[in-house]
């Protein structure tokens, strides 16, 4: 029997506060987010208005969904660097196929590369045990190559952004971005999957101790395959949303989101070593990064200094968050 005993005397207020934060890691993150917004408001009084919030949310959503892909893969100790390519491919194929295809067909065509890349990633990581970093990097190279080959076949037909995606990406209803109509179900789905489904349990368990899950009857490759396909599908959907928001199909549309999506998941408290983390933190992480980008955009300073500040703040935020939430 364990003889572990709880500390009898009441801990100090500071300790209690720290424990409170450690148990609810979302709280310090939200505080950090609010602090950034306040700084922004101080630097540019009046900027924090309804329209700005709507814009921030609009740009944070695609990042948050891709960061959701990272969160889930990171829980298993992996990473998915192909999300940028997958999103770009879906977006580009949608925008070019919609010109002379039925929307449903265009949608299915747009999601095909997502499924394929997810499948290949899943097989590589789950069956062949290739390191996810390398596997997803490789498939993203291959995907980009195919996209370029494909691009040449559609130069003549031009591109078009479907009205629905346009409405979803840029529209605002009653002060709320329409993109929330997509995001809220996606977020609920991810949170529910992680916390309340057998699959979610397995993601955590596989990332924590793969051998233990095997002895419990889990087939690793099934979990990993499903995971990477899911991740790719979400990335594909993000691509469609993003093309509605940016309205310019380019061959590198979503690539700039890849590193920030990893950063958002990490800032949100997901361990890159697996087994630890959750999606709520990631969403706040994505918001923090988006606000930070705004903050740096409007500050007048040389570009070099801007980038240095960005790196420094990301590091500072992550370090502070770790300090606050670790309980030992």
């Amino acid at each position, binding site marked *: 029997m364990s003889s572990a005993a709880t500390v009898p005397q009441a801990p100090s207020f500071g300790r209690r506060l720290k424990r409170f934060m450690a148990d609810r890691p979302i709280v310090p993150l939200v505080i950090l987010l609010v602090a950034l917004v306040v700084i922004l408001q101080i630097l540019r009084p009046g900027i924090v208005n309804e329209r700005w919030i709507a814009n921030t949310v609009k740009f944070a959503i695609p990042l948050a969904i891709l960061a959701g892909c990272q969160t889930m893969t990171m829980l298993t100790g992996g990473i998915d660097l192909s999300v940028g390519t997958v999103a770009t491919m879906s977006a580009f194929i949608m925008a070019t196929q919609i010109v002379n295809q039925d929307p449903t067909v265009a949608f299915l065509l747009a999601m095909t590369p997502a499924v394929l890349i997810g499948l290949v990633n899943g097989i590589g990581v789950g069956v062949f045990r290739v390191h996810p970093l390398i596997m997803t990097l490789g498939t993203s190279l291959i995907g980009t190559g195919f996209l370029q080959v494909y691009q040449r076949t559609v130069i003549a037909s031009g591109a078009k952004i479907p009205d629905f995606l346009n409405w979803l990406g840029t529209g605002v209803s009653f002060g709320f971005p329409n993109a929330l109509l997509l995001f809220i179900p996606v977020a609920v789905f991810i949170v529910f999957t992680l916390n*309340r489904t057998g*699959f979610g*349990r397995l993601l955590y368990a596989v990332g924590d101790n793969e051998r233990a899950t095997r002895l419990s009857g889990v087939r690793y490759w099934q979990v990993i395959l499903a995971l990477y396909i899911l991740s790719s599908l979400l990335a594909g959907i993000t691509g469609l949303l993003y093309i509605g928001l940016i309205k310019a199909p380019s061959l590198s549309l979503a690539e700039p989101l890849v590193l920030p999506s990893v950063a958002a998941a990490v800032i949100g408290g997901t361990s890159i070593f697996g087994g630890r983390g959750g999606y709520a933190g990631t969403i706040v992480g994505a918001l923090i990064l988006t606000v930070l980008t705004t903050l740096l955009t409007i500050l007048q300073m040389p570009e070099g200094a801007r980038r240095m500040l960005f790196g420094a703040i990301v590091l500072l935020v992550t370090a502070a968050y770790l300090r606050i939430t670790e309980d030992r």
Partner: protein
Amino acid sequence: MGDRLPSLCHGRKTDAARPETGRTSEKPHALTTKPLLDATGVAKNYGAVAALRNASLSVLPGEVHALMGANGAGKSTLVKILTGAIRADAGRILIRGEARDVRSPAAARRAGLLPVYQEPALIPDLDVLSNLRLTGTPVEPFRAWVRELGIPDLDIREMARDIPLAVLRVLDLARALAVEPDVLLLDEMTAALPANLAEKVLEVVRRQGDSGRAVIFISHRFVEISALCDRATVLRDGQTVGVVDIEPGVEEKIVELMLGARIEKTKVATRAAGQAAAAPARPRLGVRNLRVGTKLNDVSFDLADGEVAGVIALEGQGQDELFAALAGSIRPSGGTIEVGGQPARFGHPLDAIRAGIAYVPGDRAEALAMQRSVRENIALPFSAALRHWGPIAMGRERATVLDAIKRLQIDTRAQGEVQRLSGGNQQKVTIARWIAADARTILCFDPTRGIDVGTKQEIYKLLRELAGQGKSVLFYTSELEEVQRVCDRVIVIFGGRVVDVFPVELADEPALMRAAYGLPRDAKEDVGILADPTQPSSPSPAGGTAP
């Protein structure tokens, strides 16, 4: 307490006709010598869990000092603090009377303190020689110690990763001995060792005391303590509750100190005679001529419903492979496994689980998701199959899990992560999982390794209960005395073959020991048995009763 290693009874102390008054005269007297190591008021908290509260330990030159306590009492934590592997929250440590702040294992080495931790500290991807260079250990003395410790043919160019666990632990010890430390700290050094190696280790450790150095020795085995140690410090709930001289009959006192109020639970629950199941017509699990690689050559036996069959073997006789094959974790290279009379093929543990066979590995770290909660760990098998990937019925799960927790009396006060539980409680979680999943057959591989006496009793009781409910249990143990308490029948494996099957009445320790070394049951018979281990008493497939 039973004897694990009969040969130990002929060790130095017993030979010296241990005087009733306690220590032999060559030992320095406790009061006149300055302690080598003196720790007082050591405390360490992990969040809300107090691993140590007020521990003290004083070790004299030339003594072998036992550190005892129930699982989770804080023994390992104290060793880690003394050797700088973790930092204490409070406390004072004097080395040879001087206050020293041991900040890191490197600093501890310089201060003459050398530990062998519960987990091996060799770097898996370096060969043995590089490991020695890394720690600045002289090679020749190391080789000498390795030979002394019973491993004559070590290839020091071998990667640590490829060396079996038991040998690694011995190498760890040899590496510590080679630098001639003033204080050697051994944390459950013998727990994972086969009898032959353990014996050598005890011999060597005993000699350490003679040269004015000291050894701190942690073990849950009283037989080792009484054969080896001069004094014992007992920890309970992170506090030092007593220091006793080791003398005959002191075990009772130590148990009392260790368990405090929990004493009444330790009354040995001997196996109720009536509980032995009558051998049923159809065996639950049948193993026919099973072979795995070169380790397991030809094993056949049956396991009936309602039966606990013990497996006894020296280290590395193929028992690991046997269990792994039955659990579907590795593929046999020959022979068949039958479940309920039907041949079964296991390509993955899931196949075995589907057939109602659950495996509890000896190494807890292999079975648990350490960062997840007790609940998730217990419920893990439920989510394994594809069709259970959907939403979880939380209410039903909670009920099932709580039930299992209650049945095993798992202490879940350290909420959240399983890694915060002590070793014993972690072990219970690994078993609770299969109780909750209602597995029909449980393969337990040394489930009591490194577990305190109180918890051991609970596990024995549990296994008997399971048998009483008609489940079948295959139970490998490295402690011979457990056989008598738990098993209906004992299968002895040597050189990858079943060499004997005992009904429990005949399975006394000397007999088991002989069998485990591959010696024939009747000493008068020809010793040629060693050359042909297949011959003796191959069991009747129907099982339960041998001649």
